[in-house]
């Protein structure tokens, strides 16, 4: 069972997310994460879905997605070189005594402190999921108050593009 990242270009219409989510739900496919936002073309949105399954399952996922009328294009990004990123916002307990220490952890991750309160800080990090996981584990001992991740968005490296 491998992780796969799929880029799906869809019509920017009400209900499209429901169609995609429903398809995954009813056919027993996993959604590890799903991100949706505008694409390079007006009227089209791009979804990036991370799913787990064997090759046969991924083939079915791709084919079934294609059958949705509002789906314009489907491509499995993880079959080739790709860039995959997500954003982390993490609110960590931070007293004046530990602020500097936390900043020292955050720095090599090229993450940043985007909010400082009397008892806490918010750390913002961008990167692949492994990097986000690693940073989270390093911050865990300080006390994580709240954590939010966007899920992965991704595209293939090089000139090739998932275009309509």
């Amino acid at each position: 069972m491998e992780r796969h990242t799929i880029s799906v270009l869809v019509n920017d219409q009400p209900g499209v997310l429901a169609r995609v989510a429903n398809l995954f739900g009813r056919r027993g496919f996993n959604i590890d994460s799903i991100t949706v936002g505008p694409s390079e073309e007006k009227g089209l949105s791009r979804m990036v879905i991370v799913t787990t399954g064997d090759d046969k399952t991924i083939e079915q996922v791709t084919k079934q997605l294609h059958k949705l009328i509002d789906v314009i294009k489907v491509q499995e990004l993880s079959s080739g070189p790709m860039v995959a990123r997500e954003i982390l916002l993490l609110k960590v307990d931070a007293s004046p005594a530990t602020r500097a220490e936390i900043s020292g952890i955050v720095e090599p991750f090229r993450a940043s402190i985007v909010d400082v309160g009397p008892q806490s800080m918010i750390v913002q990090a961008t990167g692949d999921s492994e990097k986000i996981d690693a940073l989270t584990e390093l911050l865990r001992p300080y006390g994580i108050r709240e954590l939010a991740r966007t899920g992965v968005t991704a595209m293939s490296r090089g000139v090739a593009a998932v275009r309509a």
Partner: protein
Amino acid sequence: MSRDMLVAQKPEVPPIKQGEVITGADALLRSLLLENVEYVFGYPGGAVLPIYDSLYGSHLKHILSRHEQGAIHAADGYARATGKPGVVIATSGPGATNLVTGIATAQMDSIPLVVITGNVAQNLIGTDAFQEADITGISLPITKHNYFVRDIKDLPRIVKEAFHIATTGRPGPVLIDIPKDVNNAKAPFYYPETVNIRGYNPTLKPNKMQVDRLISAISEAKKPVIMAGGGVIASGSEKELLEFAEKTGIPVICTLMGLGAFPGTHPLALGWPGMHGNYASNQAILNCDLLIGIGNRFDDRITMGRTKEFAPNAKIIHIDVDPAEIGKNVDTFIPLVGDVKLVLEAALEKAEKADTTVWIEQLKEWDAKHPFSYKNNTGNLKPQAVIEMIYETTNGEAIVTTDVGQHQMWTAQFYKFNQPRSFISSGGLGTMGFGFPAAIGAQFAHPDRLVISVNGDGGFQMNQQELAIISGHNIPVKVVILNNKCLGMVRQWQELFYDNRYSQVDLTHSPDFVKLAEAYGVKGLRAETEEEARKVWMEALQHPGPAVVEFVVESGENVYPMVAAGTTLDQMHMGDEK
């Protein structure tokens, strides 16, 4: 309405000025006329009052059912009998949810339907208003596509797209939900001439290399077999299939949905496979070295869910217009995506005779060993005997619809279908209550043909209220009820797998079906012996109008052969053979 009057007159579209300002409801009906819709089946209600007001005096013929489920199964029967899309209208809320079983039935068997529902006005949407239901949400997993119309300006385009999507590629139901304010709004009417849907371009033309691989696989095969499914009928390629089979000499199994795609009495016809199929078909699957699936989907009533052990010695070639079907259930050696008709046309150019003489001898031997049969020895009327009689007396030329259960299997076993679109049955969803209203739709589609609806006493009662349609329109559907006074198929499973614990299958308190028919003004007949059966059946056939014929049959009869779920096709139980 007499039978002659039913001969469909092509609806004349009233002259439509481009840009004429009309209501959404008028725009809907004009769009339907422009799509050459002949009949709409439906049931009115609050949210569709504007549509029904526009229908008043319209050129469209509307058939009023007594339940929305009856309406949609009738539209489905119309579609199966013609290949044209069936159209159904229902109101919001309960009207729409009553369509759900019918939509799912059509989706499972790839039947083109355009389903129109009303909804509450948009200022009430989301407020749990009176008779509000989220039918686009509810029907999302059981439609090919669906629409919620937000703006009257989109309505004609959406109707055009709905008909296109329903009828092209792999056909299926498309739902259009129209809120009341859109039906009441006015706008200039422009009907688009073409359809341009960016995300919808079914692959119809086959890949030439894959066709060549098919041809060479045939030339290498010693024991090839074709499995023809409903896709052959959907694509209208029965002639091409016949030519292909005759040219190559490859014997043909039809699936239940494919019955009639290949003439059932042809020397190359093997029968149908699976749980209640015949011995020769199942042996062919077990022993073939090449299995060519055409417009079928290797459903679990054929593979028995044991897909790794299915056709264990064969290379499987799968031809289908839906790429997602290929490789979904069984591993495929040669995938061939395309419209079945275009694939067969391409294959016919190069196809050559395969050496199948020895193989066919073997298949004939298997068929002679275990044909479909039953023991007629109890003195009670056997349901299989009734079907045999119906087959003989109609020369196999009737359109026969079935409901779901034992009688469905017996009809498929003992009626040989030579023409496509003459066996109409809910194969995928297995919807009880389907058969009778489907026959009504088929009869409206073919007023001059004999339409027979074969039912059990259970399923008939699920939509028996539609007797009102055949009575009111005096359409000559012959309704057969094989009354075994129980839910036969469930009873059979309880006997075989639940130690004779017959739980909730006794239907002895059903109505007197003769009196029920008469209450609706329909001729009612009953038979309890073979002699009576033939007499009343001939009387029904000679009666110019509709008739309900109840055959009181052996109640403990089981359907054989049978392959139990979860076992494999080599484990066939033959039952009491002749």
